[in-house]
């Protein structure tokens, strides 16, 4: 017991006294309420920056706190030149090719459900290929894209129960491009129909369906005639100019 080692108390064996306290307890000071030191200008400046960035992020990405806006403008993937198009000389390419390739980029929003092939996922997400909604008039299709559709609804003889969110936060051009893309790429169009949806037609659709608050149900959509097309001039596929 008198070697220096025995300075450590043996808790299993006995009592403690201040004399043979374990050294660890002795070597710490007592705690106090701390000081009231000041933080420098740098720290305050950094705090101000944090507040500015946080507030900026909040108000620029929340899209006005609307409860029916599902995709923030800032989330939509930017055009990526390495994925083709965009780098070409715009004048040398026909208007419809640029319109389609822009539509393909906007379609990036749709691939998670409808897949890059437009075939959907059997039983879960409806296909665009062979869908009567895509092949029919543009009014119904425009209505679905602008305001979404809530299940149950039927596509190509199958019932689906998912909710497709509204996409009216996309710009008119983007909606027109993606509608053109899915109709020309995945639809089977009647003879003589070019499948083009123009910005003008989307503007008309926004006006026509403007009172809609919730996603459509199948019954509401069926009330729109199957072959109703959105009003708007046809365009020259080469130049994009309205035809007389």
């Amino acid at each position, binding site marked *: 017991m008198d070697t*220096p080692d*025995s*300075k*450590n*108390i043996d*808790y299993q064996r006995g009592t*403690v006294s*201040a004399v043979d*306290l*374990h*050294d*660890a*307890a*002795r*070597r*710490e*000071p*007592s*705690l*106090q*309420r*701390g*000081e*009231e*030191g*000041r*933080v420098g200008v740098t*720290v305050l400046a*950094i*705090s101000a920056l*944090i*507040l500015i*960035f*946080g*507030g900026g*992020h*909040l108000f620029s*990405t*929340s*899209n*006005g*706190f*609307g*409860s*029916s*806006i*599902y*995709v*923030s403008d*800032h*989330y939509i*993937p930017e055009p*990526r030149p390495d*994925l083709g198009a965009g780098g070409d000389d715009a004048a040398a390419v026909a208007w419809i090719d640029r319109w389609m390739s822009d539509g393909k980029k906007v379609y*990036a929003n749709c*691939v998670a459900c409808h897949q*890059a092939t437009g075939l959907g996922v059997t039983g879960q997400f409806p296909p665009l290929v062979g869908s009567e909604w895509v092949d029919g008039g543009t009014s119904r299709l425009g209505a679905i894209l602008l305001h979404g559709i809530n299940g149950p609804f039927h596509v190509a003889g199958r019932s689906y129960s998912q*909710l497709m*969110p509204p996409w009216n*936060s996309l710009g008119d051009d983007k909606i027109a491009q993606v509608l053109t893309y899915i109709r020309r790429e995945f639809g089977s169009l009647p003879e003589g129909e070019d499948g083009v949806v123009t910005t003008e037609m989307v503007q008309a659709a926004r006006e026509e369906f403007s009172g809609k608050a919730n996603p459509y149900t199948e019954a509401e959509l069926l009330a729109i005639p199957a072959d109703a097309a959105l009003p708007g001039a046809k365009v020259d596929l080469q130049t994009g100019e309205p035809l007389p």
Partner: protein
Amino acid sequence: MTLPQTTPEDLNERAAIDRSARYPVMFFFTSAAAWLFFATVMGLVSSIKLRVPGLWDACPFLGYGRLFPVHCNALVYGWAMQAGIGVMLWLMARLTRSRFEHPVALIVCGHIWNAGVALAVFSIWVGAGRSIPLLDFPAWIWPVLAISYASIVVWVIPMFQNRRNKLFYVSELYLIGAAVWFPWIFFTANLVINKGSAPVMGAGTNAWYLSNLIYFWMAPVAIAVAYYIIPKISGRPIYSYPLAQASFWLLAVLAGWTGFSRYMGGPFPAWMSAVSGAAAIFSLLAILATVVNLMLTLRGCTKLWEYSPSLRFTMLGMLMLAVWALLSATSSTFVFGKNLQFSHFLVGMDTLAYYGFFSMTMFGAIYFIVPRVTGAEWPSATGIRTHFWFSTYGIVTMVVTMLVGGIAQGGNLAQWDQIFSASFVNASAYVVGRAIAWFLITLSNFIFLYQLALMFLGKGRKSEGPTLLHTEPGEAANAREVVGIH
């Protein structure tokens, strides 16, 4: 200004508290360390499996889909929370000057917690997992965990009621916050997920839970440790006490909004992830204020870092908290987040929080507490050094490769006309870094477990001086003496 030395009466009281804490606290620490070792081995095995997917194909128990959740759940509930609970109880006893009145009850409840974790891990391993990160276990297990947590942490209340310390120290504020916030987030998440909400809401709630497990449990426990240990070791009072209190309330008000940005672009209103992203940025105020405050407290005596293992682990942990909070704020914004979500980046971030920040701080606390409750010194300074450096190199390797790999993988994922698996195959080289990291961390924690087991069995070094990281100055009474600060 330095803190006053202690009177003999206080010393006696301190020793009596430590003695009453010995068995429950050592039980929590040792079983936590055993879970940690298991979790790191699982981390290593799952990383190897991810790199070489064809390996052990015949055995369903060695599939990545089971190994990875087993690893995560063991790491968080087995190690992190259990170590945190041990630290919380001891700190609370010391700060309120209350003894552990019912150590046996605590040990019994601790066994229930361990049984709950073991059930959770086992059921995931045999294939009953649900693929909800950190709530993977079957629904009937969560009440076991909730009840055992409550029955352990409830002992903080009598300690607090019978407090004999006039000072209500800022660490107590953080500990009480952590003690009550965990039941809140755990109940909410489990109720929303298990009681028939829409699946989208379940996923969002899960993301909220994951984020707040860090902001509302790990961060306050670790910050409480830092505000305790750093003044104790440096002998300096907290640089700005009002700032320490203010950052607690900032954390309390802001951090609960974080989380949804993990699934930004998901099918819930856009403002939800926008608000989460903004909350992650605003929470930086609380985290950075805390870390700056701690560094200012240590100003002029950073040399202590070279000698005191507790200080070194704690301070590194707090710096990693700042790094994590910065990265988390950055990746919660749409600009960066949309190309980082669903990639290795997320694994890197979670590991940075669970290991880099929280575990490092807990190691600091354990290196401080165990000599006091067992009455012996750590057996080997080399062991502690090895633990520190292998852990540090391991976690840095992990975080750097996973973050860079995550950026590469996220870029690949954005190429939407490419099949999903291509993004994984292209980034799989980075998984080698993850395997190496877990190998280093596993080694370091084997040493940690071995040393802790020796201490548990009463085979610690009997000595006058503490085990410091460098031994040249001989048997100094403390790290302050070595570097000449009095």
